[in-house]
């Protein structure tokens, strides 16, 4: 009886959702005012070709500041919960072949993440995606070389320093925006450059860099805190 009732409710909800999805007209959405404004004004007002990045880091940059504050709060909570008084766990890694191969491949991954962060206003990507790729480097170190290698190369204090640098870079760009344009996180027109080239799009590039450093270091701290073992209480 319960299964029958569940099946009926599921079928009803699925049918309603399907009908709703089918009744959305395609051309209606793009001709509306806000999306039309974004489509027309992105290149002239910000100088960025990537519309999503321009909306995230120029029109709604204050919102992105709030999101990076959320990441900061998450990192603080996890570090408080999983205590810092821990052992660097193991130096056991995978086999020698994998270690040698990643000696070649890890700089490539770093280069890829820097490319995605710095080309955030031209091609898909941006601060968040490139930052997660930076955090993947810590995962590679912990998995393949053992987490004591990661502790010796990038200790948690240095990761915290990188994360704070990213946040301060974001706030500093906002304050420079106050000085140059009169509003917080404003996009100064002197930095705008030619759209389509690498040094363009005003304050979007340093904001991307700050978000990338912040997200990468924060997620690396989260992963490194989660794989550690706590000391046994004697």
């Amino acid at each position, binding site marked *: 009886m319960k299964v029958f009732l569940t099946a009926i409710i599921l079928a009803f909800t699925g049918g309603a959702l399907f009908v709703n999805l089918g009744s959305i007209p395609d051309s209606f959405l793009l001709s509306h005012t806000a999306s039309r404004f974004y489509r027309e004004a992105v290149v002239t007002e910000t100088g960025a070709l990537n519309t999503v990045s321009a909306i995230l880091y120029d029109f709604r940059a204050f919102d992105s500041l709030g999101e990076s504050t959320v990441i900061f709060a998450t990192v603080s909570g996890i570090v408080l919960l999983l205590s810092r008084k821990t052992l660097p766990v193991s130096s056991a890694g*995978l*086999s020698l*072949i*994998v270690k040698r*191969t990643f000696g*070649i*491949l890890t700089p*490539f991954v770093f280069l890829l993440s820097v490319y995605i962060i710095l080309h955030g206003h031209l091609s898909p990507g941006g601060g968040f995606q490139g930052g997660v790729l930076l955090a993947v480097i810590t995962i590679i170190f912990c998995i393949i070389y053992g987490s004591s290698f990661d502790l010796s190369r990038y200790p948690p204090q240095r990761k915290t320093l990188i994360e704070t640098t990213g946040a301060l870079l974001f706030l500093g760009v906002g304050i420079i925006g106050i000085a140059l344009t009169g509003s917080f996180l404003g996009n100064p027109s002197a930095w705008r450059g030619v759209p389509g080239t690498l040094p363009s799009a005003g304050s979007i590039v340093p904001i991307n860099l700050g978000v990338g450093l912040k997200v990468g270091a924060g997620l690396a701290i989260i992963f490194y805190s989660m794989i550690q073992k706590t000391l046994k209480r004697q």
Partner: protein
Amino acid sequence: MIEMHLFISYALILLGCFFALSTTIGILRFPDLYTRIHAGAVALTMSALLITVGTAVYVWELFLSLKILLIGVFLLISNPMATHAIARVAYRHRIAIPVSRDLSSRQKFEEDNRHDSS
């Protein structure tokens, strides 16, 4: 000239699809973990490489083709490495026993494990 490089790219992609088909048949029909790993390493890498080169020929711009070829080079390095790690784990921890007609490989497997555990 343009039709020529389109023809070459279609031929390469078709060959890659053939290797992909053989990979799937191998994964589905082989009796043993290690033979399946063999199918997933060799034929899959060949298929991915052929499709990548075919796509790079299809696009036919310098930097875009080089970027697509970079994917192929990365797959050429990475896929055998991943299958190597998986096969090594499965062999060292005697998760799957090789199925074979002759007893010598089975005996070698047992001896390796005995030597490992002692």
